[in-house]
């Protein structure tokens, strides 16, 4: 497996919606490459005959009764929002000028 490059980190940060400055990229990409090299060891023992475990205590089909119950009011939900208007979350526009 290849080590993570500075360009890889920049692309991944964009996918994760985290703006990184040049200094951030310098600092984080070196650290991340070292971490990736250290964790790559998992592939050494993960042979085909070993099943994967996604959840520590196996459970399936957990249901609860399908009943109407009290929930948060619209005002409560919007109270923590950075901006709200007419009972809705207000956000900047989706598309930029060039789109």
């Amino acid at each position, binding site marked *: 497996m290849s080590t993570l490059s500075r360009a890889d980190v920049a692309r991944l940060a964009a996918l994760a919606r985290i703006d990184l400055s040049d200094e951030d990229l310098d600092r984080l990409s070196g650290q991340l490459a070292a971490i990736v090299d250290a964790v790559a060891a998992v592939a050494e*023992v993960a042979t085909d005959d070993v099943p994967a475990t996604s959840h520590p205590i196996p459970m399936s089909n957990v249901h609860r009764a399908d009943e109407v119950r009290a929930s948060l009011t619209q005002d409560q939900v919007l109270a923590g929002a950075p901006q709200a208007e007419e009972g809705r979350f207000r956000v900047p526009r989706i598309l930029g000028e060039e789109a």
Partner: protein
Amino acid sequence: MTDWTRASALEMADAMRAGTVTSVELVQAHLARIEAVDGVDTPSHIHAFLHVDAQGALETAAAVDADRAAGVELPLLAGVPIAVKDLVVTQGIPTTAGSRILEGWVPPYDATLTTKLKAQRMPILGKTNMDEFAMGSSTEYSGYGATHNPWDLTRIPGGSGGGSAAAISAWEAPLAIGSDTGGSIRQPASVTGTVGVKPTYGGVSRYGAVALASSLDQLGPCGRTVADTAALHEVIGGHDPMDATSLDEPVPACLAAVRDGQENGLAGVRVGVIKELTGEGFQEGVRLRFTQSLDALRATGAEIVEVSCPSFEYALAAYYLILTSEASSNLAKFDSVRFGMRQERDTIEKTMLATRAEGFGDEVKRRIILGTYALSAGYYDAYYGSAQKVRTLVQRDFAAAFAQADVLVSPTTPTTPFPLGERVDDPLAMYLNDIATIPVNLAGIPAMSLPAGVAPEDGLPVGFQIIAPAHEDARLYRVGGALEKALMQSWGGPLMSQAPELEVAK
């Protein structure tokens, strides 16, 4: 005059029932202690609390006192104050999970755990400091500044739950709530000379706990004694239909198990020492206190055997892949739309990019980026898929070990607390703090850390870890109760009585 902050939680509960102290007096004593040692303007500046809710705690206490005076029957811990880690949501009380991105957010609802504390009538003193979104082992990654270890103010209090552990170690609260994803309850307990338990996965509801890694996270109790921790475990445990991963089974009889261990010893109990978690890489004083604890267990009747868990070599790597993958998904909700910070730009995408750049600290950024990588096309099988296979191997190692022993043991941490700043820019060195605690989370099984003494070379606390099979949380308390009693006899009192007195504000 009695200094009630030095009493155990169960002593406080007894004293209230006997009428020798009121809940208001207990809350006032702890608020005074917080004022004397916690703030930036105090000489000690423990900084265990991010928010103190004096008014709310006093109101709860006054109502408990009034009901007690009126002869109303009250729960066991009614009126005993508690501190809550800042990732458990509390209606009307700010909750930040240690992150600037949630600064000032006031949750509109209570976590199930908060509801249980309120039903038990426990005054909530405030919210405790933590590494941002529980990512860290020292609280140095908190968005609000580090917590200081009451045993040595220049050293780390552990993490991510360093605030909760420091609060009880500095006599600011008798009990606290923690969360343990890779050791965030046990490692802080170890380095502050206190007790902490990670219950079986699903044993305590996570409804209303800010999620880090959903297949690993577990809330649990922190205290200064095994019995206090057991009492709190019984308050917060139990099935919750609001959490689909909650175990539908009775709350373990933790307190009865402590009494059993204290009174009857451990005759017939097989204790397995995990070979891979001793010896090389563990500080000399840690090894010494661990070996002495094994002798103490033997003296109470336990049989000591050695077990081997060869896959643990890969546990740390698997843990960081699973954790970061799940965290990168869980933290996508901090998008500047519904709650928390917003750095406004001309489009929503640029707003999200700027908000997350500004609101998250370096460690959170590192982990989100690593998780995004591990889950991306072409790498998923090699990283996340392989890590899930290692998880199976770790579970098999535990299953084989538990065929030879009733509980497994190790030192909780390889070293005593290290100086603040020493590892903050070296993520891999920081991760090594949790080498002994991480396998437990991968397997979903319960574990406890309790004090094993202080290391002779530096006078700082050493933790002893006890691990039990899934659903057998009570075994931790039986063995922990017996070991604590034996060690306290050898010390002539609790380990906390050896902690240095903090300088207090006048």
